[in-house]
């Protein structure tokens, strides 16, 4: 008995195939859209994915490529069942990463035989595609007008170091990605950003390489896709003077907003030009505070400053983060000092150290830990 995900937009065919598979004693999950199927496939463990090539949102070729680029699904067998019968279709599906191919209409015996063959056969370990290969396969979109820039900008602020701001930014980006959103993580730190440490990527192109005129082509050159499926723009590996300009940051964010549903910005360690420019277009400013006096005092001052940067109460979210086992200040005291409730509490997680060492954020590697649950819940409120 196998756990099978069936992705097909044809409701009649889904019902028929589900019936056939259920009678073969398989457990079947259904998805009517490519995006939904991708989310289910990456969030659950399946023995086999059956998909159609012709689907209205994401076609089967693209979906197969995306599944093969994900660490969680790169080794899951994919069986294509489609009405496209041409040899070229078969070749393209194989090139995209499909293991087997059947043409509609399928009969029970043929389907059963092929599934048995796939499940009993060897499962070669597929290498994860390189960043450059992925970039080529899933480029960010072509130039579009600023009017279509609709992605949300979520800026993480924590003007006192050591509060776990980058940890939370990376994990929130992961949580949003897991919920099916296309997410780009932007590390704005001019003094050696830490996002690449959390994602354990060799520093690829960074925003420091952007030209004065930031267009979509230039942005595409600095966007890297991580094995987890997150996109990122890294900070330079060495400290730089000044960082991105206001104009450069705004142009960069305009381009990113036209290509991504969410842009999670790990703000700089100060209210520099780039961070202020990001705040000026943000949907949310997430202020990270840890339960110690210095952090709370910095948070109070930051909250007082944000309105002058046109960031108002309804845009501000406060996370009380426990980067260590214990805190000096209670939640009630923090809320009293800030004059507002905190929106989320993220507990200490001993697994964080190994998550950084492995380069896989906790939201991707660990299920149901208190920290992951807190971040997933917080992501759901945005």
């Amino acid at each position: 008995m196998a756990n099978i995900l069936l992705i097909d937009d044809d409701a009649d065919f889904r019902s028929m195939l589900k019936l056939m598979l259920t009678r073969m004693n398989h457990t079947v999950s259904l998805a009517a859209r490519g995006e939904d199927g991708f989310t289910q496939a990456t969030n659950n463990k399946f023995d086999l994915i059956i998909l159609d090539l012709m689907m209205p949102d994401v076609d089967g070729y693209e979906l197969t490529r995306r599944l093969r680029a994900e660490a969680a699904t790169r080794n899951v067998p994919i069986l294509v069942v489609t009405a496209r019968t041409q040899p070229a279709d078969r070749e393209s599906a194989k090139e995209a990463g499909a293991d087997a191919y059947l043409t509609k209409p399928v009969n029970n015996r043929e389907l059963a035989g092929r599934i048995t063959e796939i499940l009993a056969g060897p499962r070669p370990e597929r290498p994860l595609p390189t960043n450059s290969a992925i970039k080529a396969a899933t480029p960010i979109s072509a130039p579009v007008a600023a009017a279509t820039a609709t992605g949300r900008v979520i800026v993480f602020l924590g003007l006192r170091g050591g509060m776990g701001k980058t940890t939370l930014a990376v994990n929130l980006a992961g949580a949003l990605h897991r919920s099916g959103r296309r997410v780009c993580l932007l590390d704005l730190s001019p003094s050696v950003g830490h996002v690449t440490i959390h994602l354990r990527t060799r520093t690829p192109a960074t925003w420091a390489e952007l030209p004065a005129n930031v267009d979509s082509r230039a942005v595409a050159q600095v966007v890297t896709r991580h094995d987890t499926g997150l996109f990122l723009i890294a900070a330079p590996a060495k400290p730089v003077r000044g960082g991105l300009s206001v104009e450069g940051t705004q142009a960069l964010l305009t381009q990113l907003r036209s290509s991504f549903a969410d842009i999670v910005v790990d703000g700089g360690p100060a209210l520099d030009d780039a961070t202020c420019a990001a705040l000026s277009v943000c949907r949310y400013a997430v202020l990270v505070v840890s339960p110690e006096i210095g952090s709370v005092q910095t948070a109070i001052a930051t909250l007082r400053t944000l309105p002058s940067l046109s960031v108002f109460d309804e845009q501000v979210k406060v996370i009380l983060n426990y980067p260590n086992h214990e805190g000096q200040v209670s939640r009630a005291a923090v809320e009293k000092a800030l004059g507002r409730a905190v929106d989320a509490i993220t507990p200490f997680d001993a697994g964080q150290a190994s998550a950084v060492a492995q380069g896989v954020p906790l939201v991707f590697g660990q299920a149901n830990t208190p920290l992951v649950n807190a971040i997933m819940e917080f992501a759901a409120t945005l």
Partner: protein
Amino acid sequence: MTERGPTRTVLHVDFLTDTHRITCQVEPGPIGIVGTLNDTTSSLLLARNAYFSRLQQPTKIVANFEEIHLVKAHLALALLNRREDLGPQSYLRPSVGRILSAPVYLTTTMFEIRGTTEFTSRIDPDSLLIGGVGLNAARYTMLYNVTVIVTAYPDLPPFSAGALVFNRDFVTGMGVLTKGKA
């Protein structure tokens, strides 16, 4: 009480125009796809779940629609999986005479086609491509076991099909590969 309606036949068809491949579903009704294409009371053909690709990238889907109207006169070829998909045999075949077959090579404005044609008594190019009576006088006629090369992109994998309906208005030449004697 259960009502019984007529059986619906839904065909998956690959239409080729001079610019696009259109993979879609057609409900041809009792006269089959050949009869539907040759039905002169309607210039349009309704198709569902249509996926468009350009001829130079025939597997890359560039657009899709739940419903489309195809202009019959501009459809060059219709590729079908099996010859049974063409429609009722009584409608397609002559009622009398021995059926012979011969492999032929056709060129159209955009395609090179190799396949088999069927006929009674002898091959008649005039009947196959220009004139004819009855079904043979219609714009669309059939070939079997075909491969189709897009002339402008000969390195692409050829299309293949158990049955092909071609638009005679697009044909520029025909060669008989072997004289058709059974």
